[in-house]
């Protein structure tokens, strides 16, 4: 990488960092009861790191919430618990299993069933139960074509729905957090970040991540061009043969529908090089649920998804 490339990339990351810190402070100050949605994935790790920096040396003035599908990678749960201890953060867990047990949602069955979509109900129930009026999310516009349309401060009606045709104007990102009781906001401080920006930030600030983001050997099965981990919630179909592969995860979501990619990138520098050369988007490479139909993400978001 030449010096010129390096400095324009650095200046860009500086500006994104200032923008995110400013947004986090603004929403946390204007809203009464914010929460930060934390999945244990790299985007929410960066978001939480930024939020901690935003209020330093004071502690984070709001809790983080993990919407737990019950289909977790064990490494991610360990990581989550370690991080909230180290960073003195209050953790709230909203359980999809509980939503299933209490009949709020009905679980799909079968080898390809995923709890991903069910999370929206658990999320909205938890927002309402705790009285949160703003939820920070790690969503980025470059992840998906529906996300590319979303505002930094995104309004949700009393049913938690997003209406992409009636979004509030947002000139200059001069944020308007006014809502009525029962409505809430989603705030996306990482709106303008790309996957590469996320990894550059992780490198610069040494942000800890779950180990599965780096190369390791894992037993997987190939399904629809995706490498799914065997031994967790993924059930084998007839004719499928598991095999050992050297992989890492590019995204971390529900273990039933998040695929691994073949990779020998064992540290952040190697991952950065890999991401910079990638020719397939992270969601295209790793999320079975986003390839179901052309507007999967838009449909889920309308229902209240992250």
């Amino acid at each position, binding site marked *: 990488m030449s010096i010129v490339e390096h400095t*324009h990339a650095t200046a860009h990351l500086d*500006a994104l960092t200032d*923008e995110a810190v*400013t947004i986090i402070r603004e929403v*946390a100050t204007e809203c009464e009861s914010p929460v930060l949605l934390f999945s244990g994935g790299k985007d929410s790790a960066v978001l939480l790191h930024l939020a901690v920096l935003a*209020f330093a040396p004071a502690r984070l003035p709001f809790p983080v919430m993990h919407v737990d599908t019950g289909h977790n990678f064990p490494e991610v749960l360990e990581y989550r618990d370690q991080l909230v201890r180290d960073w003195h953060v209050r953790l709230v867990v909203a359980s999809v299993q509980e939503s299933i047990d209490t009949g709020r949602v009905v679980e799909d069955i079968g080898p390809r069933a995923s709890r991903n979509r069910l999370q929206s109900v658990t999320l909205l129930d938890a927002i309402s139960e705790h009285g949160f009026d703003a939820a920070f999310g790690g969503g980025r516009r470059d992840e998906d*074509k529906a996300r590319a349309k979303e505002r930094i401060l995104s309004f949700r009606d009393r049913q938690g729905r997003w209406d992409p045709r009636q979004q509030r*104007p947002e000139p200059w990102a001069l944020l308007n957090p006014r809502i009525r009781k029962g409505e809430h906001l989603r705030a996306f401080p990482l709106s303008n970040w790309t996957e590469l920006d996320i990894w550059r930030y992780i490198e610069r600030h040494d942000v800890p991540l779950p180990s599965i983001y780096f190369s390791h050997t894992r037993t997987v099965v190939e399904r629809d061009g995706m490498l799914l981990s065997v031994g967790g919630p993924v059930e084998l179909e007839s004719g499928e043969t598991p095999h050992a592969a050297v992989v890492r995860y590019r995204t971390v979501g529900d273990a039933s529908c998040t695929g691994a990619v073949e990779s020998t990138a064992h540290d952040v520098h190697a991952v950065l090089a890999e991401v910079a050369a990638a020719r397939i988007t992270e969601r*295209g490479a790793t999320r079975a649920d986003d390839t179901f139909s052309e507007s999967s993400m838009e449909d889920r978001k309308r229902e209240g998804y992250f």
Partner: protein
Amino acid sequence: MVDTSAPTLRIATAGSVDDGKSTLIGRLLHDTKTVFEDQLSAVVKASRRYGDGETNLALLTDGLRAEREQGITIDVAHRYFATPRRSFIVADTPGHAQYTRNMVTGASTSDIAIVLVDARHGVLDQTRRHSLIASMLGAQAIVLAVNKMDLVGWDEAVFRRIVAEIEAFVGALARPVPVTAIPMSALLGDNVVDASTNTPWFDGTPLLDFLEQFETRPHGDTGVRVHVQRVIRPQGGEHGDFRGQAGVVAGGWIRRGDAVTVLPSGQTSTVRALFRWGREIEEAGPGHAVVVQLDTDIDVARGDVITADPHIEPLVGDDVVIDLCWMVDRPLTVGSRWWFKHGTRTGHATVREVQHHLSPTTLEQEVATELTLNDLGRVRLQLSEVIIADRYHVLPEGGRMILIDPADNTTAAAAMIHGAGVPA
């Protein structure tokens, strides 16, 4: 450190519906190798599904189902790409007049507006409206993309006629913006990333070259303005006696040891320490998210502005004249009440006077008693709180304001401060 970096360039598209805005952005992303393989194959598939024939690059930014079904852009899409020389943030905005509020959203943060014109149809009302809005919002340059030149046989005379018309219009604006015109075919890629062989008569550069080389104007040298967001006060622990003001630097460079004045109270103090991202620093400049620790324990609250070394005195007052784009159905009338947000200060705003309605086609300042959806105009407001502001065209960060409809909390206006003071 030697700063060899070109700052990130923010670009917005503008122009009438069907002039090819989304196709141009799609072409720019495609030809800079920014499109991922799975995105491209999804677009190829969707193009077939919507009967678009060949690969419709507009589908790279028209991401909503309703947009794809109707073949239009409804809301702004943000896309990101980088070349070895520069990083870019692109806002692809809608052309329909009814979605002007979304165009304003996309154009408000942009350094450059790319105004597209369909060479067959020439300059339309919407072309003028968008050029005017881009100028009001402070675009530093307009790229006039005369598109679909292939459909007029690459006729130089057509190009020259459109350029002359836009230059005359933009030259008559209150704030003329430099115009760079490029003949192109976004669909075929001529003069987007690669120079076209169809325009031997054109001696300019393709669009990407222009964007890579464009030098953005430095921030207005007003002196220090820090908009205070909140007080940082750890409860107990090792930092128990720490007290700092978290805020964003709206203008100027603030340094440790600076003598500062907090407005509107007028109290003075000295900067004891400065922090950015949790680390102590020596100085901070425009856009930086900081914590300012002052030497003395004076009363500083959200909405206040920390100033130092003002080369230009800030406007302080609650009697404000603004230029605005009106973005909701409920009209703005004399006596109507709204919420305002300026910097980190909010309060009520009452309309005292509609000074004029600005015709987006003739640029006439017309007498008006109200402004309605998509109108542009100048009004005078009485605010419930004093603000510390700058004229928008001197320092945009200190001159921008939104109005909010108290009935449903939607954002009703993007406002650019023209003047502020205390009522006579």
